[in-house]
Each structure stands twice: as structure tokens, then as C-alpha cells.
């Protein structure tokens, strides 16, 4: 019995693929291969659920499907009752900074906070309310005051850096709800998302003395992981994509500080200091290995990340280390991928396939002729063209795919990374550099 694909998933997949972006829903319907890598990451998720902490570097060439893989893992974590946070690194979003860029990353992560019921992000208020709901219930049962229950249950948080104010803000959210003070609720959420830029503003709005700033971003992520556990979720997974943006930092000190932050996370994870928190970092091979500007330029990281030389020698993947290498797709994998896309178009019903297998082969031959092996190595454009073709066929019953095939527009994918210069910046820059930092990139959500 073929599995039915829900319309919502189907439409999301098709729409995203047409735009050349990774779908947010239903990724498992089109996933091809990579069983071992997925297994490894699922194993990580289970470890996190058991109170552990992990970090993985997902390394692949441009177009190899890092973003897809990251999203897939993220969805898997969500299905297991996790909270996920994800963000692309960029010139305004870094792990370490002094000009607001680390807070910028935090804000982006928190905006993208997803739960099983809010897989597209924007889940923070739901999490806070779920926590308070639990507190309310307890307060009703024991007759205690809601506020004290909130503080008591966050007792273990208040010992951590920033924990007391965190608890105060959550309790302010409750107070806002209780008094019908919408502004207070908005302010509480803003604070939790790291959107306050000055302590004075935060004090006036919420009566707290601290804010989430560049220097305590990682501490707050750890705090959040604990809070999430208290709210009834199984763990927290953080996906950071486009790590190459750190590699591109022109300023050595800025780059180094960011790598130090990665080292801190890595150490915490290896030594089991952090708990219920996992990181998945997506980057290109040069981000990892470039001895001058990559992670390997930082010796402490190199020693921890260098791969098992034996396994590389015999050409097998060692998945026990923190680095996971994604190979580009092969022709055969692309073929399966096309079949999956066709399957999705037919909502999972083979009787409704728009084209026979023969069409897939001819399509591949056509693309190969036009753009060479890029068609399967960086398949974004091939997939887009294929989806376009299926869309036309879908809307026009009785049309012949053979005729369409000759009129398809498929072009070589340009790696946007090669189009952007290094990010000129000094660690002391104050504020966002704002307008001159736009770069070329494809749509990404």
C-alpha cells in the first residue's frame, strides 16, 4: 500500500523545489541515500534526549545538499519532540562578535524556534505558554501562587548566568497575561528573543537589569535548553548553516574569536558539560580544512576535528568523529531523486505518475548534454527544471512530455559564495554595518 502524501506536504515540496530552495515540510518523501549519515544524526538526537550533548560538522561541496540534510535532521528532531533552532550565518550573524552580530544570530535562531506543532518557526510564545500552563496547573493543585511556582520550577535555571532575569521575564509574561497587559507580553517575548539592545530599555520595559548580548549568547542557549526541558520537550537541536561566512571574515581576530566559540561548544559537548543540547553546523570543505582561514587554522580545533587517517586511507566514512562529510549526488541518486519528485507530484499514487521512467532518463541525458556533470553534482537547477516540466504536464492533461523536453531551460548553477568578497570587518565595529552587506544568494527560508 503506497503511502499517501498529504496535500500540504506535496504543495510545499513542489513550491520550494520550483524556487530552488529546500522544502520545509515533507523532506523525507524526497530524501535519497545517506542512510548512514542520517542514522548517525538520529543517534545524536537520542543521546540528547537522554541528557547528552553533541556537535556535528556537516561538510559538503556547494550544492551537495547540506542545507537539505540539515533540514532533514531538524525535522527528525522535531518529530522526536525536540525544539529546534536554525539560522544561516551571515555578516550580521556570528557566533562571537562585539558589534551586535552574535545577538543577531541569537535573535534569528529564536525567531526560527520550531516545535512539532510549529515546524516553520515562530514557536517561542507557544513554548513559554506551555511552560506557564504547567505552572498554572501545579498552582491550582497545590494552592500556591502562580508566580512562586514559576520561580520554584525554574530554580535550577536561576543558578546559571542570566537565569534569574530569564525567570523574571517568563514570570512577566504570565503577569502580562494575567493583567491583560499585551505590551508586557510582547516585551517579554522580545527580551527572550534577544531583541533588546540596551539595558536601560530592558529595565524600563521589564524591570530586569540584563539583556541577552553578544557575550552571553552561548550561555543563553544553554539556559534555553534547560527551560525547554522544563516545558516538556525532549531536547534542543541548533542548526547553523552557511558556516563559510566565518571563513570569509577578513579580520583574523574576528575569525579566531568565532572559532574559539566553536571550540568552547565542542569542548562542552565532548566533556559533557552542556546537556540536552545539540549543534549541527553546515559548511564547505574549505571552511573546515583551509589551513589559513578554515577551522584547521585554529590548532586546538584541528586536533579535535582531524579525521581518522586510517578510514580516509581506505576510503570509508568514520562517523564517530564530529565531522560528517556529504558526498555530492551521483547520477543514480539523482535518478532516484527524480523518481521521488514524480512520486510526490502524484501524491504518492503510482497510477498518477505523469511520466514514465524513460522520461527521467531522457531528461537526465538532456541536462547532461546542456550543462555536463553539474546536472547531478549540483542538482538544484536540474530539479527545478524537472519540477517545471511536471507542473506543465500536470496542468495540461494530454500533453506529451517528449515535446516539452526539448524546450526546457536548464542552466549551470552559480556558486554564490564565489561572488561575494571577503567580509571586511573589525571585531570592534559597533552596530550592524547594515546596507552594504547584501550579497547575491538564492532564496532561502
Amino acid at each position, binding site marked *: 500500500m503506497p503511502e499517501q502524501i498529504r496535500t500540504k506536504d506535496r504543495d510545499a515540496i513542489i513550491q520550494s523545489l520550483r524556487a530552488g530552495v529546500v522544502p520545509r515540510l515533507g523532506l523525507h518523501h524526497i530524501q535519497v541515500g545517506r542512510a548512514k549519515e542520517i542514522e548517525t544524526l538520529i543517534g545524536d538526537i537520542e543521546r540528547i534526549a537522554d541528557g547528552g550533548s553533541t556537535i556535528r560538522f556537516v561538510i559538503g561541496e556547494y550544492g551537495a545538499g547540506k542545507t537539505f540534510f540539515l533540514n532533514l535532521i531538524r525535522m527528525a528532531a522535531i518529530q522526536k519532540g525536540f525544539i529546534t533552532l536554525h539560522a544561516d550565518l551571515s555578516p550580521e550573524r556570528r557566533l562571537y562578535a562585539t558589534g551586535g552580530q552574535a545577538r543577531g544570530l541569537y535573535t534569528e535562531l529564536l525567531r526560527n524556534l520550531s516545535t512539532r506543532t510549529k515546524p516553520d518557526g515562530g514557536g517561542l510564545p507557544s513554548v513559554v505558554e*506551555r511552560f506557564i500552563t504547567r505552572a498554572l496547573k501545579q498552582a491550582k493543585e497545590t494552592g500556591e501562587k502562580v508566580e512562586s511556582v514559576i520561580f520554584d520550577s525554574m530554580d535550577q535555571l536561576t543558578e546559571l548566568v542570566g537565569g534569574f532575569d530569564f525567570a523574571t521575564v517568563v514570570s512577566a509574561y504570565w503577569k502580562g497575561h494575567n493583567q491583560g497587559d*499585551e505590551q508586557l507580553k510582547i516585551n517579554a517575548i522580545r527580551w527572550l528573543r534577544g531583541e533588546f539592545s540596551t539595558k536601560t530599555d530592558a529595565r524600563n520595559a521589564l524591570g530586569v537589569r540584563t539583556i541577552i548580548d553578544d557575550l552571553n549568547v552561548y550561555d543563553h542557549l544553554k539556559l534555553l535548553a534547560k527551560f525547554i526541558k522544563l516545558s516538556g520537550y525532549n531536547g534542543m537541536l541548533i542548526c547553523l548553516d552557511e558556516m563559510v561566512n566565518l571563513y570569509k571574515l577578513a579580520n583574523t581576530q574576528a575569525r579566531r574569536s568565532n572559532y574559539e566559540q566553536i571550540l568552547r561548544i565542542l569542548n562542552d559537548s565532548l566533556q559533557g558539560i552542556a546537556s540536552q543540547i545539540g549543534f549541527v553546523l553546515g559548511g564547505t570543505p574549505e571552511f573546515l580544512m583551509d589551513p589559513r582561514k578554515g577551522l584547521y587554522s585554529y590548532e586546538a580545533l584541528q586536533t579535535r576535528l582531524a579525521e581518522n587517517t586510517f578510514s580516509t586511507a581506505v576510503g570509508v566514512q568514520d562517523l564517530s568523529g564530529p565531522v560528517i562529510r556529504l558526498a555530492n549526488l551521483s547520477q543514480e541518486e539523482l535518478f532516484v531523486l527524480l523518481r521521488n519528485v514524480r512520486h510526490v507530484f502524484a501524491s504518492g499514487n503510482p497510477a498518477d505518475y505523469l511520466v514514465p521512467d524513460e522520461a527521467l532518463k531522457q531528461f537526465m541525458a538532456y541536462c547532461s548534454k546542456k550543462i555536463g556533470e553539474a546536472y547531478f553534482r549540483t542538482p538544484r537547477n536540474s530539479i527545478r527544471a524537472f519540477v517545471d516540466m511536471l507542473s506543465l504536464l500536470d496542468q495540461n492533461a494530454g500533453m506529451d512530455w517528449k515535446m516539452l523536453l526539448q524546450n526546457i531551460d536548464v542552466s549551470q548553477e552559480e556558486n554564490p559564495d564565489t561572488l561575494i568578497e571577503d567580509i571586511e570587518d573589525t571585531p570592534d565595529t559597533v552596530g550592524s554595518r547594515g546596507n*552594504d552587506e547584501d550579497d547575491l544568494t538564492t532564496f532561502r527560508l
Partner: protein
Amino acid sequence: MGMGVLILIFVSIIILVAYANSKKAAAGSDTRLQVRVSTSFGYGDDVDTSVRPDSVWIPKNKPVSIHDVRIGDGMLYVGTGLPSAEGQRFLEPSLIDPKLPIKQSGEPNGKFHIGYWPEYKELSPEAKYAYLQWLADGRKNPRTNIGFVFIFFYGLERRLLSDSQTSKAALAEAADIINEAQRLLNIYSRHGSFKRYATKFVDFGRVKFTPNKISINVPKEKNYDEFPLSLQVGLSYYCAKTKPIPAEWALYWYQNYPFHKGLRTAAGRCEKEFLTLYEKKYRDKFGAGLMLKEPKKRLKLSYRPATRSISSEQTLTLESLPDALKLIRPLKQIEEVVESAIDELDPYSRYLGRNPGDTSSLPALSLLPKGIDLRGYGDGISGLEETIRKVLGQKSGAVFRASDILDHWSFKSDGKISKNENLSVINLLDRLGYSVEPDIRFTNMKIVPSGKLVVFKKTGDVPDSPTKEYQMAHLILSLAMAVSSSDGEISGEEKRHLANHLQTCLKLSTGERTRLSALFTYLTIEPPKLSSLRKHLEGVNNEQRRAILEFLISIANADNRVDPEEIKILKKIYQFFGFDPESIYHDIHSGQTKYAKEPVVVKTSQYDSSHEYGIPAEKQPKEEALSLDEIRLRSIVQDTNRVFGVLKDIFEEDQAPSNSNQEQEKIDPDLPAIASLDSEHSTIVRKLVERDIFPRNEFEDLCDKFQLLPDGVIETINESFIEAYDDMLIEAEEDLVINQAMSKEILNARTN
């Protein structure tokens, strides 16, 4: 039109093959071409390849008569034999062959059966007549068959996009043709397909043929799956000129972003406010506007005509313009602005949802965010402002009869006003530049409608929420005012000394000091009732009382001395707490010596201190009149959580359950739990599944009855449903959409 496009692709493939050969060879391949075409369309056309478009084109405003129908406006192909624009062996679809019969029918707007691919030749005689009538009538009858509009539009497309390549006359008509298409668009934009083609045609035509006169309008509506041409050109223009993008453009860019989910309800329900707030925030963030860095890629526009006369996609690469739409980061930046504006408008919008049309009442206005100017929202607000100004004049603060202010709202007062009503007053006065005491956000004290209140001007930093220090100051001050109000033993001066002492030693900010002074004034007039305090105090045991007193002494002693005024008030408190007032000297003394001799406590005692050695802080020079021992102060504040809680309870207003005026929802304990939810959530689920769509307002009311938080309820229910049934029950964007497949399962479970 999709079907047509496909057939065109098919035809064009053949044509391309034909073009690849030489002219003679092309003639030779005609046979093959003809055969293929005639089989796929099933007719052979009387095409005369010698007919040139100019010879059958009727220019603008040149009258022409077909049979007895006189058409005055021109812009038509009338004649015979004109082949399609690309020379295929079929007739131009918009060509009016005057020899073909027409027949008058009773129904000018008739329900003619016109194919998916309309062409004049194929119309029935009745439909031909109706078409000619529509033309004769000035091509403006809004109720005409859209097929007619398309046939005419095909002619415009051909004239502009194809004829203009070979005919100077056609090129000269470009502006007229574009204007004509625009005119049709204004009349027939209700028809989605036509609107899409015509909009794009007009935009494409303007850029290509009249670039000097181009004035791009901001596209007002969301396009389907691509950016409108005008948006592409406009943005690229700003980008190329390194001009800041105006707020309006940025918003439409954001709205036309293909993945855009659509703006949330608030943006539409209070559009005026949304635009104002959005533009303000946009300016605050980007100044004159967002600046785009010019990408290398050039802008390439394309238009695929509706007519099958032109099969190839028309493209135009603008070397002078970059392709700004490839930029994604600016969209994120715009999104932040848009979303924060909508967030802030949500409360007002929800109010309007509950009270449709009530845009300018004071309760409504009190929910408007700070970026919105309240002037122009009717008399209610200006009346209130006038009342305040009359009393306040140049003074920074004044005491009012509460009723003078409250009368502007028409609360159904039964001697009390609710939390919401309190907030309404506080927020609205705040918007006018005033603060109020009592302020429920700071002190849990509600305004007493029959009493007084203090209104004071906002200056500098204005806190909206109390810090812990402020709460302490408030509680101590209240206690002091309560115990010293009963007799005249303590003078106003002495009380003021205490207020000052609290301000200084708790390090209140300027804004908090202003507020505390106002509170002081208020408490002088309306001191807390000792009787009610006494009642609350009954629940406080001796040990807790002792702790509070110790805490008070440590505050009094924060500047390393206890002044006579402070002692006087403390003695009253001792008495009130049931302790011997004379024991205070002993306590002050031991308090002082305690802090002087012991190492300063730098950590709370939750840690096992046996392995840690505290390092005494450097001694502060004691001579200074008001030198605060920072570390001691911090430890006082930190250590007194418990005491603080008890003290707060004493001042808590008598709280009946917050929704006592609402009826509690009944929970039937005998009904089974749903998806392992507790009985409250199960009861809510039972209410929800009765409907397909559950309005947000009603849902919030429902949650209120259970004293639960709406988003928390949705999250909890959905989580349980995914666990139990692998799908969510509630799709919640704004209103709640109930998953019907799920609800059937529930209803079945109920009956079983």
C-alpha cells in the same frame, strides 16, 4: 491559457526547425509543417503569406464598417489571409474577416461558447456579431464575454511585440497600444487570467517601448508566483541609482515575495495604522530607505504573450539595470520591520475583532502602539487631554478626583474597575505623556473610582515595569505610610525623609524616583488600610515577621547609619508586628555589628561553602555621609527573596479569583480523557470539535474560563494529538481551523 502555451511550444519547435534551414529549404519543409499543424489543430487556414500586417491594420480612431456594424476606435486587424505573427500556416486569431457571416442575437452579453483559445474566425455568427458590437460600443462593456477581450488583446500583443520589429508605423503606435491595454485592464481586471497577462504586457511594453516616459507604479496587489515586472524594474532602478528604497516599495517587495504567506490580519484590519507604523519603523531603521548593493547580474525581463500568434517568450535584458530581486537579505530586514509593526498592532486589531467598528473609543485607543499619533481619533481623546491640562497646567503632577478622569471612559463601574480597565486608563494617559498612580503594573493597587489619583508628566526614562528594587521601595513605603497614618505622631517631613532614603539606598533610576514621589503623594492621601494589612499579617508567622524587621533595619542601615526619623517609623512597624518597639535599639546595634564584623556574603548559601573561602571585600571608608556598601546592598537585595515574598503578600489586594465575574466552565469529570489530555484540555477539545473554524476571540474567552493561556493550550493539545493520532487537531494562524478528520475520530470516540 496554459494549454495554448503548450501547443505553441509544440508549433514553435517545428518552426525553429524550419528556420534553421535556408529559405528554399524552408519552403521545402513547408509541406511537413503543414501536415503536422493541420493534424494537431484539425483545420487548414486560408493563409495568404503575401498579406502584410500594416495592410490590414486599422489604426487608432480610424472608423471601419463590418457588415453594418460601424467601429470607430480602430486598433484592429480587418481583412483576410493574415498569417500568424511568426508566419505559421494559421490565421492571425484576432483578424476580423469581414466576409464571414454574422447574425444578430438577442443576447449581446450572451453566454456564447467560446473555446479556450478564442479566435474571431471560430466564433459563431451570433458571437461574431456580439464581438463587433462590443468593439463598436467602445470596448468598455464590463459584462462582455472575456473571450472577446482576449481576441482584441491578441491584436494589441501582435502589433506591439511583433509588427513593431518590421513596421515603423507599428513602432510609432507603441504608446497608444500600451495605453489601450491599460484601459482594458482597468475595466476587466476582475478576470484573473486577463489581469495577469495584461498587467505584465503593459509593464513589459512600457519598459521596452517607452522607457523615457516610464513611471512605474507600486503594484498594489500580490502576484501569484513571480514578481511583477514593474516591481522588478522599479527595485532594480533604485538599486542601479544607489537610491534608497522608499518604504512603500519595500513593503510591496516583501508582499510579492513568492513564499510570502500574506500579511497577518492586523495589517488589513487596521491598514491605516499598520502603514503609519510600518513606515515609521522603516524610517527609524533605514533612514531614507534601504540601500541595495548592486549585483552583477543584469535584469532580464520576460513576457510570454497570451496570443498563440506569437509563440516565443519575449525577453529583454536591461544592461543598465541589475537584477535586484536576487537579493534576499533585504527581504529579511524588511520582514523584521513588518512583523514588529504587526505585533504591536495585534492588541488593537483584536479589540476591533471583538468590537467591530469601534475604532476611536478610549478603550480602543489605549491599545494603539506608541508610534501612532492619537490626534484625529475623535473628540473622546481630546476631551480627556483637556481635563488633564486644565488641572495640571504647568505643574509636573497633580491630584485628581478619579472620577474626573474615569468619566471619559464609560465603565460600568460598580465601585470598582477591572484590571483591563485600569490598564486602559494607564496606557492611554501614557500615550498622552502622563503617568498615573496607583498603577496596577507596579503596585497591584487598582484605581478606586470614588477616590483620588495622581497624574504626573513623564520625563526622561519612563519605566513600564517595576524592578525588584522599586517593588521593595514601594512595599516599605506602603508599610511605613500605613503604620504612621493612624495618628499625627509622624510628620510629613519625616515620611518624606524615608521616601528619599529609599530612593537613594535602593538606587532607583530617575524615572522610578519620579514615580515613587507620586506614589508617596498618593499614599499620603490614600494610605493603605491598616485593618486589611492586619488581616493579611495574621498569616505571617513570628519567624517571618522577625525576618522582615531585620530586612527593614538592614535597609535603614544601608548608609551605615540609622537616622532618628527612620527609627521613629520603624518603632511603629515593630509595634504593628507585635514586637516591643524598644528592642529596636538592640536590633539596630546587632545589625550594624553583624555587617561590620562578618565577611561580606558574596554568595547565597545554596552552595556548600565548606570548600570555599570568602574573601572579605575592601572596607569602605565610613566617614562619607552617604556611602553605600555596594556589595552589602546587593546581598541585601539578593538575600531577601523570601522576606520580600511575604511582604508582598501582605499588600496583595484581596484577590477573588481574577475572573470571578465570569461563570466557570463546567467540567464533567465522567467524560473520558482525550488523547491523554487532562480534563480541562479535554473539555476544551470537545468544544472545539463542534466547529470547523473557531474564532480566535471566542477561543481566548474559552481559555480564560479555565484560566489557561491560549497558545499554551494549542501547543499542549496539538502535541498530545500528534502523539496519539499522528496529526494536529488545530491549525492556528489567527482563527483556529479544526482538522475535521481528527474531530471525527474524537466524536466517534465520544459516542463509543
